[in-house]
């Protein structure tokens, strides 16, 4: 069954909503009342429900199976959190409601902030950033503001970024007006400390580093790196996308971090929702704390208050209101459910599971680096050499086996990278089933069953889609067929 676009299903006059009669009033629309039709389709509620139920069934989801997207941390999303986020005391609260009426929501923000600070060993947190990349922006802006406050705003224009960094890191640095200076990796997949030190100087504003890094490895020299950067007056921005690997076991504050965003949707399991919303609170060192964006929460005698106006050094406002409240309540429920013990256990299990996959697949696939990984296992495409099967083909063949592919071609420092992150949410049975499928596929590739890969997926709602065509001739919206256009 093909599901038509909603625009192809509608009929004029029909609606899935009933509203009371509109009282007759004299229009005050200032002569700007809309004249023509908007062009929206009309559907009844049963049609709308069916449309979206049918569409949903063409998606893969963590609730359907293992979702091994490295660096994305697709873990279980507890339904309790969905329930609590919908309590009217949070969900039906206006962001500009009198502060005397919003105490409960501010308390959630305050308690969440406390957990984040304790877990990271950092003294402050900015809650407002709306996603990970927004958090990076917040951190780099705080760093910039600190340099400006020291009178070094004009001189510190360079930010060091490892080659293996998430694309958002260089994008953020550049967006903030900095020059991006790439730092090479060692053969074992970590930052080249010597090369890094060689790049340090009085024009360095900061280093942006992911740790555990995008190769799934812990940066052993992390404290030396922090020390070296601090030594030249720079700050250490840590990309917290991989915090899931160490939460409860290692505190970034103990590593010399000055700012780190936390993807609540990764480490603390607010649902990814097909691409957001996320939430990217940023923990800050004492040096950076004064520059945090508005608004923020303060605690006094166990009660919490929202500060919307500040005469101090805040670098400004990153978004209109109070951050991703709907994500805060979910993340807090997740944290309280795990507790200090459970969060550490989750990190341990995530690391154990990734190492288990690495250990069980290394004889048929090629692990990119030796030694233990953290929460994700990185393979390269050497095992596909001369098979005629690419990393992409291999990934698409996983779809036919009922799995979402792993992250492909990232990190860039590894050829044909395959980055597998099982997370702590998978049972051993589930891991074993996945491993068995991956082994079968690897063996099939080497046995020359090329068609199985190059033609994949065969059993998905769609065969391979033509992305080149989409980009060459962009069709970004539905337009009515010609006769209807003529009638307009």
């Amino acid at each position, binding site marked *: 069954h093909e*599901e038509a676009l909603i625009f192809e299903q509608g009929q004029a006059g*029909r*609606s899935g*909503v009933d509203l009371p009669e509109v009282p007759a009033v004299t229009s005050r629309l*200032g002569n700007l009342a*809309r004249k023509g039709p*908007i062009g*929206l*389709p009309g559907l009844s509620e049963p049609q709308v429900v069916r449309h979206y139920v049918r569409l949903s069934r*063409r*998606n*893969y*989801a963590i609730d359907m199976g293992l979702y091994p997207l490295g660096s994305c941390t697709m873990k*279980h999303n507890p339904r309790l959190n969905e329930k609590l986020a*919908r309590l009217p*005391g*949070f969900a039906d*609260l*206006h*962001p*500009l*409601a009198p502060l005397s*009426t919003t*105490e409960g929501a501010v308390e959630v923000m305050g308690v969440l902030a406390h957990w984040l600070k*304790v*877990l990271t060993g950092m003294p402050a947190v900015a809650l407002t950033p709306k*996603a990970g990349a*927004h958090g990076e922006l917040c951190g780099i802006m705080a760093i910039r503001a600190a340099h400006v406050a020291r009178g070094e705003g004009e001189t510190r224009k360079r930010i060091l970024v490892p080659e293996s960094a998430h*694309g958002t890191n*260089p994008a953020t640095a*550049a967006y903030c007006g900095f020059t991006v200076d790439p730092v090479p990796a060692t053969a074992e997949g970590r930052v080249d400390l010597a090369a890094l030190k060689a790049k340090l100087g009085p024009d360095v504003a900061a280093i942006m580093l992911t740790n555990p890094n995008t190769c799934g490895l*812990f940066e052993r020299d992390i*404290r030396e790196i922090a020390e070296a950067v601090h030594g030249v007056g720079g700050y250490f921005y840590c990309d917290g996308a991989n915090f899931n690997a160490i939460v409860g076991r*290692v505190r970034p504050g103990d*590593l010399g971090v000055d700012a780190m965003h936390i993807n609540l949707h990764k480490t603390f399991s607010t*649902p990814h929702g097909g691409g*957001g919303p996320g939430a990217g609170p940023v923990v800050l060192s004492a040096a950076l704390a004064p520059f945090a964006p508005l608004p923020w929460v303060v605690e006094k005698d166990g009660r919490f208050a929202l500060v*919307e106006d500040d005469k101090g050094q805040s670098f*400004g*406002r*990153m*978004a209109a209101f*109070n951050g991703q409240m709907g994500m805060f309540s979910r993340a807090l429920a997740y944290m*309280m459910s*795990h*507790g*200090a*013990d*459970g969060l550490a*256990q*989750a990190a341990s299990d995530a690391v154990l599971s990734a190492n288990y996959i690495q250990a069980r697949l290394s004889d048929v696939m090629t692990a990119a680096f030796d030694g*233990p990984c953290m929460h994700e296992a990185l393979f390269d495409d050497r095992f596909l050499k001369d098979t005629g099967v690419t990393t992409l083909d291999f990934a698409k063949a996983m*779809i036919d086996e009922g799995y*979402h592919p792993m992250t492909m071609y990232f990190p860039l420092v590894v050829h044909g990278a395959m980055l597998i992150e099982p997370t702590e949410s998978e049972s*051993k049975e589930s891991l074993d089933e996945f491993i068995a499928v991956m082994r079968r596929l690897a063996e099939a590739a080497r046995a020359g069953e090329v068609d199985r890969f190059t033609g994949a997926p065969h059993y998905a*709602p769609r*065969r391979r889609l033509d992305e080149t065509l989409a*980009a060459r001739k*962009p069709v*970004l919206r539905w337009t009515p067929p010609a006769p209807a256009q003529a009638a307009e």
Partner: protein
Amino acid sequence: MRYLPLTGDDRAEMLAAIGAPSVDDLFRDVPEAARLSGPVDLPRHLGEFEVEQAISAMAAKSRHSGVMASFLGAGAYRHHIPAAVDHLIQRSEFLTSYTPYQPEIAQGTLQYLFEFQTQVALLTGMEVANASMYDGSTACAEAVEMARRVTGRHRVVLSGNLHPHYAEVIRTLAALHGTEVVSKPAAPGGEGDLSGDVDGGTACVVVQYPDVFGHVTDFTALAKAVQGAGALLIVAVTEVVALGALVPPGAMGADIVVGEGQGLGVGLQYGGPYLGLFAARAKFVRQMPGRLCGETVDATGRRGFVLTLSTREQHIRREKATSNICTNSGLCSLAFTIHLSLLGEAGLVKLAALNHARAVTLADALAGVPGVKLLNQSFFNEFTLRLPKAAAPVVEGLVARGILGGVPGARLWPGDPAADDLLIVAATETNSEAEIAAFAKALAEVLA
């Protein structure tokens, strides 16, 4: 630990397969001094019932719009969201999926994004729209950045009647690039033509429609003047339902239209997550920030959808990206598109008309309170009153009477005495005539 499937036996077997003596051994790359020897100083894990009790107790401290008569607006609006919306967005396949990077198994998400983009383009009267931004304010700031890129100019003119938070977000970002921001003074009684503020170095003019005080202004002439000077006109819409009643910004000549989509499907949520709408002329499409979904075909020729033009985006372009935005508001865009699909053309038009009618009734009722002056000639569902005294304490007086009576000027323009006696008031379909009458009565009492 209800969320963790591994048992002690599992862990032992897995360690054996790895050949590691313990899980601690897997953390051996962490400098020893940085490894915690025990749990951090936070409570231990709790059962679901205990967590629910604790967080529900916090929620119960709020006096929310469901138990108070709410007339709050100024950038966020309370509309009734059909129950089907929340049901559908909680489908596992929507809620627990990732960004649709594997289109063959993400057609559900991709098709609704394509439909969403179409709806936003239709509502705003623009040619193209993206797959969402964080919220209206960040969308607006991104539009300014885009105007800088498109024009290569570094001067930005902001209407004084642009929501002050939006202006602040723009200024915060603009500071990064040394952009000159000309912020006009707020004009509670309505703002004059900004054509005179545009010069040859201007990248864009940003106006709001309806503006933060509720005025509805025709920007057709301004658009011509702005474009005549080689700049772009950016129109921000904070109440998307207004577009069911008003001439769309595209028809007035806007180059970029940004909006806050929270009013449809998403709800109040104390400010987030919200939904940034972003629409533009087609010629600017490769300068747009954010994800785009496009139509294509699969290997057998069937229609399908993919994320496209990602050469603009950070995960491909890195430091050359048009924005650093990555995760956006996927699930909120789903809620929006479902709500709008339910409404349809007829429903949205009626909803907008009902909002307007309620606001007219409210404006007439409040303007009749002694000492209260209505500042608007025109408005959609929101308007501004000048009170005979400071508005903030009046609002507290109304709270005591069970009414969330509007946003006082001092909340939005702190420290500006000219704003102290202003009250911005909104009405939607959720306000009954009885509530409106009660509000007028209570305001008279508080002011007496």
